[in-house]
């Protein structure tokens, strides 16, 4: 099973914190390019180990890419626009990181004082000193309710085992795209978007596409900003690695 996932990091915020601390970065002035590179490096290393990457990590990668591009943009903006957009594109992310950090610290503190496995309670009164008629002030309803709850609890557990929520992962999406490209070696990205069942799936498909470009399996072309992307398949082994090809 590939459920090992990012066991070391609780989520994208956790990973970002690790990177910020490792690089001794000021939270108020994060060098997005450096962080983005290291973030992607980590995710890629997981993919190389053939581990599935939880979709939240992919969404964060897309957010970082967006922040990076927005930080490059103002240079090319018209003056009036530049004035209007004064805010730091990192602001929202930093706010979230600071909030998350608070609870990460509290969690640490709670872990130190947690009595589970260490502190035991008695749970039952000493029968010698209580009036049975008072202590057993129950009706058959109580038994029925308790038993119903047990059955429901067990049923829920079973359901949880049976229905595993579908998750989109870059690795599986790359495989899916490759299979599709073999049948249809040229297509528009909008086609993939149309087939997606959620925004998340679109994001994951997009990251998968970037990976395929990097691996030289496809060529992509975008004529205008925000325009559709034309994708061309370069063969199963990619252009560079194609053993049958002679340049």
């Amino acid at each position, binding site marked *: 099973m590939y459920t090992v996932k990012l066991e070391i990091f609780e989520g994208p915020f956790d990973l970002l914190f690790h990177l910020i601390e490792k690089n001794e970065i000021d939270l108020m002035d994060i060098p997005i390019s450096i962080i983005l590179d290291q973030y992607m490096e980590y995710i890629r290393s997981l993919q190389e180990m053939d581990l599935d990457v939880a979709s939240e990590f992919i969404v964060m990668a897309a957010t970082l890419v967006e922040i990076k591009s927005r930080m490059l943009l103002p240079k090319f903006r018209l003056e009036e626009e530049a004035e209007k957009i004064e805010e730091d594109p990192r602001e929202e992310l930093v706010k979230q990181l600071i909030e998350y950090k608070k609870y990460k610290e509290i969690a640490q503190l709670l872990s130190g004082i947690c009595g589970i496995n260490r502190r035991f309670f008695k749970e039952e009164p000493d029968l010698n000193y209580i009036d049975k008629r008072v202590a057993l002030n129950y009706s058959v309803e109580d038994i*029925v309710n308790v038993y119903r709850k047990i059955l429901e609890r067990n049923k829920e557990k079973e359901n949880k085992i049976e229905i595993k929520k579908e998750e989109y992962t870059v690795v599986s999406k790359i495989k899916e795209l490759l299979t599709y490209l073999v049948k249809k070696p040229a297509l528009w990205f909008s086609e993939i978007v149309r087939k997606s069942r959620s925004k998340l799936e679109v994001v994951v498909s997009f990251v998968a596409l970037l990976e395929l470009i990097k691996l030289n399996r496809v060529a992509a072309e975008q004529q205008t900003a925000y325009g559709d992307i034309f994708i061309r398949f370069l063969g199963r082994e990619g252009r560079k690695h194609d053993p049958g090809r002679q340049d």
Partner: protein
Amino acid sequence: MTQEGKIEAILFAAGQAVKIRTLAEALEVTEEEVRELLKRLKEEYVKNHRGIDIVIFEDKVEMCTNDSYGDIVRKALKMEITQGLSQAALEVLAIIAYNQPITKAEIERIRGVRSDKPINTLLEYNLIKESGRASSPGRPILYSTTEDFLKYFGISSLKELPEIEPTS
């Protein structure tokens, strides 16, 4: 940590009689040494008028309430305890009521947790009883509800237990 402290913690957490041998094994001392420690512990309880006490019978020991405080304990518990079964005990009772006769292993499979303590409590309350042994390997004890169960829960026979379909 002290040796007496260890024994005190184990006896409190057990909530029932514990074998001297069990204590000896846990503390990695001889049974004689455990008996010596228990004697010292009891002396300390008596000397300092503690609210707790221990009773030793044959090869077992159990923590209990110091009976000289019996009156005030009864008075306080009368105000405090209107429903004396823990959630765990109620769950075990419900499982036995609907599946009797049933073994401990089956109860624990349904609940997903160890259930010695609540079973013991229910036996003490006389709400359940041992009713033979299963034919499965090890011939485990089977448990059923008692007449007292019917009496305290206000039904005249088990047939009156409503059927349950798990709703979802």
